[in-house]
Every structure is written in C-alpha cells, then in structure tokens.
C-alpha cells in the first residue's frame, strides 16, 4: 500500500534529464564501430543564447589578437562579417635576437618613462641621423652607419725598449675621424651588435728623453728631449654593442698602423697601433691604447668625446689662449 502511494506522485514528477537519451537508446543507430552512446554533434538550439540573453548579444570583448575576427556560428550565419584586410606587420617593435643573452636584450617594456624623453631631440630617431638611422653623425645602437669624429686626451708612459732612452710619462691630445658600418644591421634590416669601421687619427704628444749618443756602450749620461711626438694612425675597428638601448655601451677593438717619429732618429717609421675602448653611445668613450714602434712604445689611457661636444670646448680654449696673447 505504501509503495503504491509513493509511486503516485512520481507519475506527476518532471521527466528525468536522460529521457532523450533513453529514447535514443530505444532506437540505436547502428554504425561501423557499433552503437553511439553519445551524440558527437549535438544540435544547438538557435533560439538559445549562449551569452545569457538579448543584452549580451554582441560578442564579448576579447582583446586578444584575432579572436574578435572569428564570430560564433550562430552569428556568422545571420550576417557574414566582411573580411578585414590583413594587418600590417609592425616594423619597429620587439625583436628577439638570435644571440639572446644578458648583453643583447632590447630595452625592456615598461610603463614608466622619463617625462623629458618625450621632448628629446632623439625621441623618434637617433640624434643627428638621416634616412631613419641608416647614417648617423653621432653613433647610436640602431644606426646602420655612423660618422666618427671625436677628440680625446690621454696619459700613459713612453717606454724606451732599448738602453738609449728613459721611460717617462707621456701625455697626448688626439683627434680622430672615420666611418663605422653595421653590415648585418644593413643587410638583414634588423638589429645586430656587430659593427666594423675604419678610423684615422692624429695626435700631438710629449717628447721622448733619449741619449744623444747612439753607441750602446756609452753610459746614459748626456740625454736630451726630442720634439713633441706627432703620430698618424690608420686602423680597423671592430665594434660590439652591448645592448639595443639608445646610447648603449659598446666595445671597440682597434688594430692598425701608426706612423710616428722614433726617439731622435731622422724620418718617420711605421709601427702597430692597438686600442680597446668602452664607448658611451656616440658621445664619449674610455680607452686604453698603445703605439708599438721599434725601440719606442707608448701606452696610454684616456677619454674621448664627440666633436659636437668637444669642438666648442676646444674652440673656447683656443680662443682664450689666442686672445690672451699666446702664440700657438
């Protein structure tokens, strides 16, 4: 009796959720691989909104690239969306370098900026550059080629490798010019740390102290001072930029020849010139260099500055001396 009463309300209960499945089981669809237990392609009710109602009929905002172009099937059938033109690839942006490492990473993306950077002369392109940085009058990490024009002061030692002179301090003033190229930057149209160039320089340095007698058997008593050392140099520069940042550091390795006087010998002689430098963008650089000639070696360190900056300083110095009555 009790069971009978309990079964009565069940007759008025809503149908179970798997009622359609039960109907499907009643008429099994025979296939090659047996009966299908679950419909792999359930039919969607076109009147049922997956987004939850009429107010959210429009596609939900999705800021990821490309996803907004793909409309759901129920919307696409109503009105096909016009094909958008393919997006133009950005030429400037993040480029993952092949030599990925601590020194070659580009400038990190950051929301923090110096307010003054928006007003800098080099905010959009390298300072004093033409053709979008293909040539720069001041070196920059993104330049395809650059002018070298700087002046420097240096101090070191003049080492006389024979016994016909004395090792004494050496100071010099130098001007330098040349051209730097970034071959892979120009060829592949992307950033690359390597650069190569040719430079020439002229320097005026303090003279040597040498013996008046060439006889090595004589004692080094009667010594004299030579004229100031004037040297010409022509050299090849290999350059490695340490980052893609504007005004980044770079290493310059220079190897070439030097033409200079040697002690008190008549004539000029060729020797070897070598230099290693750390540059600060194109505006300055610290260097250690050497001129290696027969019996006469000069090793010196110093700092150079681009001619745009050092030129006015030199002009002011010369103006003060000349206007002050100094005969240079």
């Amino acid at each position: 009796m009790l069971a009978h009463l309990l079964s009565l309300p069940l007759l008025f209960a809503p149908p179970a959720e798997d009622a359609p499945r039960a109907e499907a089981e009643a008429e099994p669809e025979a296939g090659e691989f047996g009966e299908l237990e679950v419909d792999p392609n359930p039919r969607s009710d076109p009147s049922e909104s997956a987004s939850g109602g009429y107010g959210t009929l429009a596609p939900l905002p999705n800021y990821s690239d490309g996803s907004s172009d793909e409309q759901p099937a129920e919307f696409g059938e109503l009105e096909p969306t016009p094909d958008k033109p393919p997006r133009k690839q950005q030429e400037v942006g993040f480029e993952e370098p092949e030599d990925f490492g601590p020194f070659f990473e580009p400038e990190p993306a950051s929301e923090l900026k110096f307010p003054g950077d928006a007003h800098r002369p080099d905010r959009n392109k390298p300072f004093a550059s033409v053709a979008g940085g293909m040539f720069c009058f001041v070196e920059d990490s993104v330049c395809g080629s650059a002018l070298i024009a700087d002046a420097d002061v240096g101090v070191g030692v003049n080492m006389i490798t024979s016994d016909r002179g004395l090792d004494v301090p050496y100071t010099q003033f130098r001007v330098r010019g040349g051209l730097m190229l970034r071959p892979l930057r120009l060829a592949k149209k992307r950033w690359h740390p390597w650069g190569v160039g040719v430079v020439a320089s002229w320097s005026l340095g303090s003279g040597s102290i040498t013996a008046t007698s060439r006889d090595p058997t004589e004692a080094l008593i009667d010594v004299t001072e030579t004229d100031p050392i004037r040297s010409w140099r022509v050299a090849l520069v290999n350059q490695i930029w340490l980052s893609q940042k504007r005004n980044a550091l770079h290493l310059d390795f220079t190897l070439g020849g030097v033409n200079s006087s040697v002690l008190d010998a008549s004539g000029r002689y060729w020797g070897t010139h070598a230099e290693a430098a750390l540059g600060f963008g194109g505006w300055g650089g610290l260097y250690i260099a050497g001129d290696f000639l027969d019996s006469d070696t000069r090793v010196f360190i110093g700092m150079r500055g681009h001619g745009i900056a050092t030129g006015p300083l030199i002009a002011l110095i010369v103006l003060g001396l000349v206007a002050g009555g100094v005969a240079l």
Partner: protein
Amino acid sequence: MTTAWLLALVLGFGPPSLDEAEAPAPAPAVPAEVEAQPTPEPEPEPESEQPTSLSKASAAELEAARQPPAPELESSGPPWYTEDDIDRLRARYDIRPDPRVEPRKPKWRCLIPDPVCGFGVELTATTAYAYRFRQGDISVEGAYFDWSSARIAYDLWVNFPAHTQTIGAYKFTRLTLGPKVAMVASDNQDLWGNFGIALRYWFGVKKWSPALEFSSALSFKLIGERAGMTAPQRSPVGITADIGVSVGGWGAIIVGGQYDTPLAREELPEKFRVSAGGQVFVGFRGNILWGAPAAAAVGTHIAIQRRLPDQP
C-alpha cells in the same frame, strides 16, 4: 507515514525543470511574503520589451545590438581600466592613491640637466679663483712657490641615471653618474687634461631643485710654457676633485683641489724633472648653453694670460 505521503505529493506538483522551459525570463528571487504585499507597479523597463531569444528578434534589432560595440572595441586602446578602476584597485590593496602628476617640459630639451630627463650630455664651463702652489728646488731649504691665479675648466659630462624616483606613471632622475672629460687652463699657458667620473644628486624633482655635484678625475698636464715657448708637456698622473651645490642644473658653486704628481726620478736630469704642485679653488661652474658661464670662463682666461706675470 502521513508526512511522507504529503511530501511525495508536493514533489509531484513541483515546477518543471529548466530544460523543458522555453527560455523563461529570469524571475526575481523575491520571497513570497514580499511578493504578496501591495507594492506600486514598477514602470516597465525598455529591456523588458525586447525579445528574449534570437528567433524573436528582428533584423534591425540584431543589427543595432551588434554594431555599436564594434567601433568602441576598434578605437579603444590601453589602458584598459579607467582611473576610477585603478583607484579602487589601489584602495583595495592599501596602496596610496595615484598622484597623477602632469610633468613639466624639460629645460632645453634635456640639454640642461633636469630631473625629468634620463640620459644626458652636458657641457660646462668653470671659472674659479685658484690658489696655486709648487715645490721648488729640493736642494734649497724652504723652496716653495705659491701665488693667486684662476682656474678655467671646460667639461664634458655624460650623465646616466643611476637612481630614479617613481611618481605616478613617471620616473625622475635623482642620481646621475657618468664619465667626464675636461680641459683645464690657468696662467703660465698651462693646460691640463683630466677624465674621471661625475656625480649629481638631485634633492628634488622640480625645475629649480638643488643638487649636489661631485666629480673626481685623473689629471695630467698637456701643454705648458718653457723658455717662452708653448709646447706639449709630459706629466705623471695626478688627481683633481671638486664638490659643489647646483641650482636646477644651471650652475653650481664648487670647491675643489688638484694635485700634480712630481716626476723626480734620480736618473733623470734636473731639467726634465717635474715638481709637485697643485691648487685649491672655489668658483662657479655652469652649463655653457646659457652663455654666462662660457663668457666668464673665456674672459677670465684672456685676462690671466694678459695680466698675470709668469710664475717660476
């Protein structure tokens, strides 16, 4: 038993499941007691007249529903959150409110040092009174020379931001460090070169904020006068340093000194030796772009070459 029967009966007349309903409009979850109270009839909202499914929507309604968001999505860009959103987010995590600073323009497009600038290149001219001294012949007791002179220096500073302060969405330079190279002149047609490091600490980020400047460098003589002739001079490596207070990067009052290392090896003849010397100085160093520091330096240089007698 009676209770179980009644429970089963209630379940039998329960509402049908949502699967069978034809997309009913969402009913407000209002208790029955509240619903039974006589409440004023709410005005029908515009949304209530809209169809509840796509099949009942007209083509014009579909078009109106789809089109408006698209242009906003195309034209909108970062930031994706409004300022109010950011304020609520910062308040939620107990972060002080965004100051939303509107920074000023830099002075002379960052050619004059400014806290709103990062990397910078700077040319300065120094005009200073210098008390110079030099050791005399060491074989003579008390051989010592000192005289009043002037120091003229032209510096190139390459400033890198070494420490910054973040205010809002901007960062401001508080400390710059970088290499410097300079040429220094004085009487006797003396000319030194030096290179070293320069430091500037800003006490604020405003246009006229003061700053502490310190520079030190290796110093060496380049040119001097000998027997009435101006010629390159050799020199051991000395040192120079100065400290000063700047106003807005335009100029600074500095105090410093320089020491010229002697070259006094015994095997060198006396005429090739270099005596120990130096100077202490106090003066003004300013950026040459606004003219006055450069004019003062050149004028002083000319004056000391013409007026000061040659020193021993």
